[in-house]
Structure formats: C-alpha cells, structure tokens
C-alpha cells in the first residue's frame, strides 16, 4: 500500500478536529468525503484480506515530482493490486491510480499499442504498458520511467529530444514530382510497399531510443527510430532519386548511421517488431555504395 495516502488522510482528519463547530457546506462535504473514505478504506482492507497472494500483484512504482515535498527525492511506492486474467501493466497502473493514489502519473491513451504513449521500463526492460500481460512478469513488478530521458514526474519522461531527433531526418514524404491530375495516384509496386511496410509501423514510443547504449552516450545520435523513419522514405520508390540522395546525406552524418554499433536492443524492445538494426545496416550499405560512386 502506498504510505502516502494514509498520511494525507490523517492530516485532514486532524484539521477537522480543530474546527468542529461551524458547519459550512465545505465542512459537510469534507465530512461526507471522510466517511466515504473510511468506508472505502475498511472495504479495501476487507478486500485485501480476502485476496490471497495468488490474486494480487505488487507494483513497485518509481515516484518523483520536482514540486511536491516528499517526492523530490525519487523513491519507490508499493501498490497491491488485485489481479485478473488478461490484466496488463497499464490496467494495474490505472487501478492503483484510481483506487489508491490519484497523483500517480503516467501517459496513456489508446490502450491498444497504437498511440505509443506508455513505453515504460518494466522489470528492467522497455515495454509498452498496455501491451504487456502481467502474468508474464515476475512479481513484484517494478515500473520505472524510460531510462535516458529526463523525468518530468513519476513515469512521465520528457519526449522533446526524441521528437527533435525524429524531425531531424525530415520525416515527410517529398516526391521529386507528383502527378498533375488530382485524381491520379503515383504507382508503387507491391514489392516496394512490402519493403517499407515494417518501417511504417513505428508509433513513436521511444522504447528503442531509450534502450540504446549509444544513444545514451551520444545525445546527438539520431537513434534507431529516426533512422528507421529515414529508411521508410529513402526506400520508398515514389520519392525519386534526388530526394533519396538528400536523405542519405542526412543519415550518413557523423551522428547518423555510423554511430550504431549493432547492439540490437532497439530491435528487441520495439513493440511493433520493426527490424531496426536491419534497417540501419541496410542504410549503412546504401550510404557506402553511394559514396563509392564518387571515388
């Protein structure tokens, strides 16, 4: 149980004892709330007693808030959450937040691995909260914000740098020329679509970047996700040769593909199973081939 809630409860109770006479609407509300909380607390205790270990799971969650006293020093809070089949890390976090501590902070939205908001560091590995079944993990489950990014609060990290890197590769389709007719599409072979298919799946979750040692050491390294983005366009035959040259120029900068030391951890953690290392390596070869022309 999070120790923090209990503290706060006792504090508010103390407040009330000092001013019992005047019954303002606020007091009434507070009284009601306390009553309800007491009930809930009791109920929760009953629930917890009846829950044997098989049915609960312990979360150890990283907590930090630069503004709130007691949270300025990073710490871990424990939450015991009832377990049910099919429960994901995200479900457990939501439960802990809605039942125990409403200040528990994490990003999430789609609950189906498409929005990329909830990449977390769970039991020593980058994972998407909503895509990770608790039953696959060891108890207690330790949940931290993504490593190598500044922590804003609790499990929320600053993604700005990641976005900057993504945008540094000019991540937009920019064909040398498009058909004049507004109803005429550009042709693309099935093979070519297959080639870029995996690379287009990226959901910008940042798990890969966070797992890469090189990116950790070199802030300017474009990182696997951005390089994969560049791959997605460089390999798209619809763009044309000129644009491809420009794209190669971007990725073969010093902090581009050459930084990658083929550690594969990006590929391993990517929730969308994008073969990142393979794409990076292919771009290295592409860049070398391209340079050979000028020798």
């Amino acid at each position, binding site marked *: 149980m999070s120790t923090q809630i209990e503290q706060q409860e006792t504090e508010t109770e103390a407040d009330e004892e000092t001013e019992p006479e005047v019954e303002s609407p606020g007091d009434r509300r507070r009284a009601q709330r306390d009553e309800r909380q007491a009930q809930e607390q009791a109920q929760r205790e009953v629930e917890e007693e009846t829950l044997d270990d098989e049915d609960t799971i312990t979360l150890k969650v990283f907590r930090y808030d630069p503004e709130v006293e007691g949270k300025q020093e990073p710490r871990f809070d424990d939450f015991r959450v009832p377990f049910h089949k099919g429960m994901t890390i995200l479900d457990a976090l939501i439960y802990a937040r809605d039942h125990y501590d409403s200040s528990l902070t994490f990003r999430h939205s789609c*609950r189906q691995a498409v929005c990329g908001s909830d990449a977390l560091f769970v039991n020593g590995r980058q994972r998407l909260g909503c895509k990770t079944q608790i039953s696959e993990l060891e108890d207690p489950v330790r949940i931290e914000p993504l490593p190598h990014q500044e922590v804003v*609060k609790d499990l929320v990290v600053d993604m700005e740098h990641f976005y900057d890197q993504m945008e540094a590769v000019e991540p937009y389709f920019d064909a040398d020329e498009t058909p004049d007719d507004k109803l005429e599409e550009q*042709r693309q072979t099935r093979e070519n679509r297959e080639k870029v298919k995996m690379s287009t799946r990226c959901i910008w979750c940042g798990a890969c970047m966070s797992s890469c040692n090189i990116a950790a050491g070199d802030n300017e390294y474009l990182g696997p996700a951005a390089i994969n983005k560049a791959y997605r366009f460089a390999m798209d035959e619809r763009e044309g040769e000129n644009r491809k040259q420009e794209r190669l120029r971007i990725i073969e900068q010093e902090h581009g593909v050459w930084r990658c030391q083929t550690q594969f951890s990006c590929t391993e953690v990517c929730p969308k199973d994008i073969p990142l290392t393979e794409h990076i390596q292919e771009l290295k070869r592409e860049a070398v081939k391209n340079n050979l022309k000028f020798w």
Partner: protein
Amino acid sequence: MYEHDVIVVGAGGAGLRAAIAADEEGADVALVTKLHPVRSHTGAAEGGINAALQEGDSWDLHAYDTMKGSDYLGDAPAIDTFAKDAPEEVIQLEHWGMPFSREDDGRVSQRPFGGLSYPRTTYAGAETGHHLLHTMYEQAVKRGIEVYDEWYVTQLAVTDHDDPEDRVCHGCVAYDIKSGEIQGFRANNGVILATGGLGQAFDHTTNAVANTGDGCAMAYRAGVPMEDMEMIQFHPTTLPSTGVLISEGVRGEGGILYNDDEERFMFEHGYANNEGELASRDVVARAELTEVNEGRGVEDEYVDLDMRHLGEERILDRLENILHLAEDFEGVDGLEEPMPVKPGQHYAMGGVETDENGETCIDGLYAAGETACVSLHGANRLGGNALPELLVFGARAGHHAAGKDMKTAEIQTGPSAKSEPGDVEPPVEPGAIDASSGDVAADGAAVEPKAVLESTVEQERQRVETLIESDGINHAEVRADVQETMTDNVNVFRTEEGLEKALRDLRAARKEYENVAVEDPSRTYNTDLIHTIETRNILDVAEAITLGALAREEFRGAHWRAEHQERKDEEWIKHTMLAWNEGQPELYYKPVILEGDEETYEPKVRSY
C-alpha cells in the same frame, strides 16, 4: 497570450487536415492538442477509407450507400459534398506518401466493406488509421505548422450575447500540462474543434482514454446545439477487459459466436436466421447482450468468438493480427481457445452541429471529425466512412476558416433553424446544477476580443485554482458512476425506464461532481486535474446522449427503443437538437434534408 489566424483544437485526422488546409490558404495556423498529434485516436482505425475511385464506381453510388446506411437521418447536402470530395482527398493522401496497399499494377487497392454497393474501401494493411495519422502529421511537420502539444483546451472564448447566433468565438483557453501554465489563444479568423470521440462516457469502448468529448461539451456550453447525440454505434466484437476491437474480419472469415451453453445463438435463438454471425453490427450486438441478460453469457459478461475451426494456416494467413490482439490484450490464444467478446461503444454519429463548411452557428467557431455532426452518418455510420469524413470536412473547415471563398452552405445551423419545439420529459432537471456558476462560456459583459479572452482566462485560472486548493472527492468515482449507468441503461438496449434511471443517476453524479477536488497539488503534469476537468465534459455529453435517446421514440439505425420497435418515417425524419441554453438544456427538432442538389433520396427499408 498566443495569437494565430486559425487555432485548431485537436490534432487527430480532422485537426491535422484542417491545419494543413488553413496553411495552404496562407493563414498562420496552430494546432493545440492535449496529446502529441501521433497519439491521437485516429491511429487506432483499422479497416479503411471509402472513396469512389474506380471506373465502375461513382460518387453518387457512394452517396446513396451512405444515405441508406444513415437510415435516412443524414442530410443530403452533407452526404453529397462528402462523396464528391472524398476521391480527391484520398488521392491527395497518396500524393503525401501514405503507404496504401497496392494492386499488381501499382494502383491503390480497394476492398469491399459492409453496406457498400461497390468495393471502394482503400486501406493500408490493417492499420489504415495509423498510416493516415502519421502521413498527415508528417505533412504538418513539412509545412512547419506550429503545434502546442500537451496543451489541454479547457474553454472557448466566446462573446456574451443572449442569442448564440450573435456570439463570436475569439479563441480558447488552454492549460499547459507539463508546466501548469494557463494561457489564452487568440484566433483572428477562427477556432476549429477537432477533439474526436466521446467513448469515455461509457465504461466499455473501443475509444481511447483521451476521447472524453471535450469539444462537444465546450461547444455545447458555448451555445452550439448538439445534434442527434443519441446515435451511438456499438461494435459487437470487442475484448471484455480493454474494449480493444476485434475486427469484423473474424466473422467474415467464418468465426462463430457461442454462448455459455455452447449454442450458436445467432441461429439457435433466431436472431438472424439467414445471416447468422454476419448480420449487421447492431443486430449482432443486441443478440449478444440478450444472451448475457438472459443468463447465458460466459461469466455472465460476454460471449465466445471461436475461430479455431478455421485452422491454424488460414488464421495465420488472414487473421494474424487478431491473434496478437487477443494474446496481448486479453491473454488468450486464439488458436487454442475461443476469444471472449462483448459489444462496446465505438462511434458517435452525433455531435456539434455544423454545416458543410464546418461552421457552427457561432461566428468563428468550426468543428470537424467525430466531434462534429454535419449529419453525414445520420443514425448509423458505415464502416470506412469516418476517415474520409475527417479529410473532407477537416479540409473544408480549414479552408473556410482561413478565408477561402466557398459555396454558401445549404445546411442551416443554430437554434433559429429550429422548426419544431421538442418534447421530452426528463424525470429530473437536466443541465447545470447552478446555471450561474460560470458554466456558461459567454458570461461577463465582454464582447471585445481581448476582453473576452482575458475574462475567460481568468475564469479558467479560478477553476483550476479551486479544484487544486479545495478538498473533496476524487473525480474517478463520479466518472465510474457515469460510465456505469450509461453502459447499463443507454447501451444497445434502451427502455424508457432505463433512460430515466440514467438521467437520475447522471443528476446524482452531477451533484457529486460539485464536490470533486484534485488531490495532487502539483502543477507539473497533473493528470489528476486534467481528468477531473474531462469528467465534467463526460457528464454533459452523457446527459445529452440520454436526453436525445429519451426523446426519440422510434427504432432507427443504431438507436433501439424497447417500446418503439419500428422506424417511424412520418414523425421522425428529423434531427434531435439540444441547446445548452445557459445551463437549462432545451430540445428541439430540425428537419432532415433529403433533397440534394442533384438527387433526392427516398427512404427505403434498410435491409442487407
């Protein structure tokens, strides 16, 4: 204070398209969004985008299908505009690099979809929405469009005139989630609401946690009428614990639904003797719930969708992603065991009343996407029609707001377009608990843009201050109450009794909400605060849905009423409209326009 020509609230498909359109017109446009654009729920769409692209197909066939699908509650001018603009918009996406699935000759593939008379659904694998969203965000990056991401818009800055149609929208107020800063956003030309769906009014939905109907609620309180709010689409196959969508493809390939007694209930209990599992979405959803209500649900909650008999090879070939979904989100191996499914809220056909150019009755306020109701989908949306809607009406709103000359809209907006006063007798008073409590966007005597904005900012600062400073209950309880009663009573089955109960529960929840406070004192990334404000919006939207549902005494499209089992064309080919009316919601009806420029639609029986 920030200032731009056009402010787009929300950066899903609709918002991005609008911003790009405004940018094309040379306007200085900014996107203000509570999620980073690529996190928007447009990314979740799987199926596809409808547009008449091929030789044998034409826009009027698409329009006809859409009108029929809407069960004759769609407005012809909206539908025609939509079907005409869609092909160009889809090809535009292709020119922007969207990785569509392709034919052997290199052209964009199209596939058949429910309710379409021609295979006109373009798609990009089973992740069409993801690609659409990312392609458009990339184009926004290319154009250097300014994005205020993780800024939560809390209120519109609207002038104070008695009649909503005299009001002008000068911008909005937003809260920077990361720093807690509250700022006014002045829009010189217009504000476009593109905040997406409202699925969080229900506890079981395919929508994202962020789909809380903020845009609807803000526009509603600012004086824009809500149209056809009762029209909510429920999808029959969603995973029970998360609401993740299991695509219709499983049933299309031959998946079978069983109840707890292992009966193939679609046939054995006579819900659809011909089509069985492949009957339309609403029929299947109702059948499933009947089974559960009659005690034949598995674990009293869901039914089983079995595809094991299709064989591993076929499943891996055509339904591989379904295996992943079931495994990742439900912990079930679809090759070994049946998958649990139940109906879930999926889409809101109704919303902020707009015309074909995206304009609302308030000058300078636009809406597009799922938030809006041009009345394209009427009583039922066809699969694959929402994504092109984002493009078509997003673009139109963007162009119009940026000052492009456009054909005058045929659809009339605003309470004055009312033709018939409404008659609904809610068991309890709906609307604001205390109409003078600052719920109305237009308050104070301000009409001058700067003053309007400043007073709205002040109001929002106060609101946030009060929420954080005071003691009270946590919003999560209120939200859970709302979601629960909505799912119990305003779900697939609607009875008068249930709807009335829902209204009473919602009233109680509103009273509870008076007591909410934010426990987290931090100004840094305070999601507790954001969710608390969202819950307020959910309340308003839920109530509007329920009021509309109580008023509409017929069975049309997605709206089913126990006491009224048939479509009543004489009486009910009209939109239910709800005006906030300074906290005392007022119902009225607006006629449906069945005559288009080129074609007039005759209501026919909707059968497939």
